[in-house]
C-alpha cells in the first residue's frame, strides 16, 4: 500500500478524533473501532475523508469491515480514487 496514502489517512484520523494521539504510534494494522474511534469520530472521519479525497462514500461502503484498521480503510479509498 502507498505510504503517502497511509500517512494521509493517519493524519485525517488523528484530526477527526480531536484527541492527542501520536501519529507515529498508529500502526497500519491497529484495530481502529473501539480503540481510537468512537461513533462521533467515525462520523467526522467519513466527512473528512470525503472532503480530502473529493469523493462520496455510498452506504454499502460504510460498514464495520472498512473501518477495521488503516489498511482496510486505505484499500477502500484506493479503490475509490483509482476507479
Amino acid at each position, binding site marked *: 500500500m502507498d505510504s503517502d496514502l497511509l500517512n494521509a489517512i493517519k493524519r485525517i484520523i488523528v484530526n477527526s478524533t480531536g484527541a492527542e494521539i501520536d501519529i507515529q504510534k498508529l500502526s497500519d494494522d491497529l484495530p481502529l473501532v473501539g480503540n481510537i474511534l*468512537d*461513533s462521533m469520530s*467515525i*462520523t467526522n472521519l*467519513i466527512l473528512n475523508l470525503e472532503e480530502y479525497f473529493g469523493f462520496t462514500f455510498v452506504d*454499502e461502503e460504510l*460498514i464495520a469491515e472498512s473501518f477495521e484498521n488503516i489498511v482496510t480503510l486505505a484499500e477502500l479509498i484506493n479503490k475509490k480514487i483509482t476507479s
Partner: protein
Amino acid sequence: MTLNYEEMFFFRGSKGRKLLGFIHYPGSSVRNTGVIYCHPFAEEKNMSHSVVVKTSRVFCNMGFPVFRFDLSGCGDSEGELNEVTINDWLEDISCALDVFYDKATVKNVGLWGLGLGAGLLMHYSFNKNTTPFMLLLAPVLDFNTYIKQFIRRKISTQIVGGTLSKSEPTISERMEKNGFVNVMGYPISNVLYKSFIDTPHLGEKFSPLSPTLFLSISQNEKPSFIIQQQFELISSKSNYLELEHIMAEPFWDRYWRWECPEVTDCCMNWILNKLK
C-alpha cells in the same frame, strides 16, 4: 425601573399544530425591534438551550423583546418528528412571526438562528425584505449534506457496535422498508429525509436585503471552508453580508458548554452596531 418578564404560551403553527412559544419582554426602554429565534435540529437544540436562553436575556436587557419557539415535532410542540417536513417548519416560522408582532407590538423583527434554524431562516427570508437584520450562527447551508451526515451518526454507532456488516441491509434500505430510521432517538422518516434532500442549496442566490451576519464558531482559527466559500459567493453581490469567526467550542454540540460569552457578546455588539 420595571423588571423584565417572560411569558410561555401555545399558538397555532403549520397544519394547526400547537406550538410552544416563549417571549422575553424587556421591563423598560423597550425597543420597537424584536428578535425571533429559530432553534437547531435534534440534540443540538437541547445542547444549545442554556446559551440561547442566556443570550435572549442579554438581548432583552438591551430592550429587545425576544421570541423563542419550538418547531413542529420538536421540544414541547405538537407533532412527531417523523411526520413533519421542511415546509412545515418554514410555515411555523411565518406563524410565529405573526404571533410575535401581535403579542409584543413590535414594528419589525430581526431573525436569529443557530445551525439548521439559521438555514431555515435563510430559506424563509429568501427574496423578502421584511427584516432589519439576520444573525445566522453556524448556519446549515446545504440541507442535503446535513441530513446525510446526521444519518451517518446511526451508521457510525452501528459500526462501533459491530452490527453493520456486508450482510446487513443499509440505512437507506431500512428507511425504505420501515418508513423511518431512528437516529439517536430521533425518528427520521422518509418524508422528512426527502424534504431535506429536496431543499435547494441557495448558494449565490441567497442575496440578503438587510444586514446579515454569518457567525462561524469553531475551535479552528478560521471559518470552515464551506462558510467562507458561501460568504465569498454572496458578498460579491450583496454589501449586506458580513462574516465573523469566533474560536470557541461549538456549544450546540457539547453537553458541558452552558455558556459562551464570546458568542453572546459578539451577537449583542453586532446588533447594536447595525441598529445605530
